[in-house]
């Protein structure tokens, strides 16, 4: 019981991070119908901006101020990267054959990984735990269930970010334009929406979410390298597909489920096969629900 509770806490924390990344995949897929394979690397760049800022500010500012700076600068940098990636790698190929932007995306991903490897080094980089401590939830025959301040912070920050994001998508003119372009880009243009600008902003917003996820990943694990974007990216992409690609709540749900599956599988079976468990469950879900858990299957009149 205590052990399960501990895995639940760990799984939810990790799942929150996956969910934030998955939202970026699903947004871009929804609006231009392509998988942005470089998204995981934007997440990685967010983590690196985080570690550079936090290392530089250590001892100069207080921890909360340092964290705030890390989050904001990571968002700014990743926003610029997202903007540039769309401009350089995808926009010129719009209207080209379907595989072209996909190949370009993979190329972009390799480019970003190598660029960070060259500029930041291939070795792992580490920071100390900046939000130490926590409290004990339960003590069952010597097995202690811990809820750390770090985990609480990650969950709270993610919920705040998702709340702001949800507000933007559902209530603001920008969010409405994004959904309109997603549903019928040509009609949106006929109503005066600059679809290119809307797509650019979608990339920027998705990249900011990945930046937040990257900094939280850094804080949670304390260790990063240029390759973290690959694994996290694939997990988050799987989360987006599991939740129903194109569905924003689905991406968050998918992220949480994958975090939980990983945590429980590692806790009760073997860590080595946790990825097998994730993909098996994805395969099983897709067999019965081809459009994912919250994918679209509503009736629409034409």
């Amino acid at each position, binding site marked *: 019981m205590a052990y399960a509770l501990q895995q639940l806490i760990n799984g939810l924390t990790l799942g929150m991070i996956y969910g934030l990344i998955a939202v970026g995949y699903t947004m871009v897929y929804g609006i231009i119908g392509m998988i942005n394979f470089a998204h995981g690397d934007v997440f990685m760049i967010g983590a690196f901006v985080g570690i550079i800022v936090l290392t530089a500010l250590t001892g100069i500012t207080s921890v909360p101020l340092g964290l705030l700076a890390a989050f904001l600068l990571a968002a700014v940098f990743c926003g610029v990267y997202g903007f540039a990636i769309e401009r350089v790698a995808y926009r010129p190929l719009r209207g080209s054959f379907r595989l072209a932007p996909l190949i370009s995306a993979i190329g972009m991903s390799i480019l970003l990984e190598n660029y960070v490897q060259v500029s930041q080094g291939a070795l792992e980089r580490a920071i100390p735990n900046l939000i130490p401590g926590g409290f004990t939830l339960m003590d069952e025959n010597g097995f202690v269930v811990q809820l750390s301040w770090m985990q609480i912070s990650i969950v709270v920050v993610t919920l705040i970010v998702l709340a702001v994001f949800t507000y933007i998508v559902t209530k603001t*003119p920008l969010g*409405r*334009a994004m*959904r*309109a372009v997603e*549903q*019928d880009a*040509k*009609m*949106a*243009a*006929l*109503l*005066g*929406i*600059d*679809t290119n600008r809307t797509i650019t902003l979608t990339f920027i917003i998705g990249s900011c979410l990945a930046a937040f996820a990257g900094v939280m990943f850094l804080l949670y694990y304390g260790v990063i390298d240029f390759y973290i974007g690959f694994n996290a990216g694939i997990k988050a992409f799987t989360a987006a597909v599991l939740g129903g690609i194109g569905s924003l709540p689905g991406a968050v749900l998918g992220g949480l489920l994958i975090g939980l599956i990983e945590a429980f599988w590692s806790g009760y079976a073997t860590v080595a096969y946790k990825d097998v468990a994730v993909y098996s469950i994805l395969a099983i879900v897709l067999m019965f629900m081809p459009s994912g858990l919250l994918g679209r299957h*509503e009736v*629409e*009149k*034409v």
Partner: protein
Amino acid sequence: MTTLLALDRVSTFYGPVQALREVSLTVEQGEIVTLIGANGAGKSTLMMTIFGTPAAKSGRITYQGRDITRLAPFEIARLGLAQSPEGRRVFPRMSVEENLLMGAQVVKYADYEKQLALVFELFPRIEERFNQRAGTLSGGEQQMLAIARALMSKPKLLMLDEPSLGLAPLVIKQIFGAIRQLNRETGLTVLLVEQNANQALRLAHRGYVLVNGVITLQGSGAELLAKPEIRAAYLEGGH
């Protein structure tokens, strides 16, 4: 009268296929102009070419004296032209309200309130369905919504592509009544594409006939209604 919209020898292609051949047409301020023609004649292509998607390959399109032939669709939309396109194209996963907000994209909030009142007066159904998802509306309601959405931008030129398609006679009557009312009371200029030639020609001041991408006839609504070739091709056996 001043000319609001003019097409001068406009040709449009889909790849190698030519859909419009040197089409010339004018719409004067305050007029209802209708464009009739059989299925596949190029009517929808003409409406979309005015909005630059697909763009005209040759010829010139001027709106209020300004050349708009090479503008992007969204720039054209911001000049005061609004279209209810073929197939309605309401945003299915948005509410009626959000669809109307999308239509009002280019206007100020004060105008939004004013246009909303106008739309509710013309189509009380829209007010009843205000919070419903557009994808779940009936065909007639979706058509009303498409027209209402176009009206929300407070357009100077309202373009309607087959608003009567697939609708019950009573709903068609209501929609044509709304077009007439808008034109009489607010002086709104309308370009109306129809296969339903009889009612369209009765409503319109002037009309053009499009056959295989070419304008073959033009004249006042009454003139065209009286022509034997129109009667034979579009009216006899029809409504």
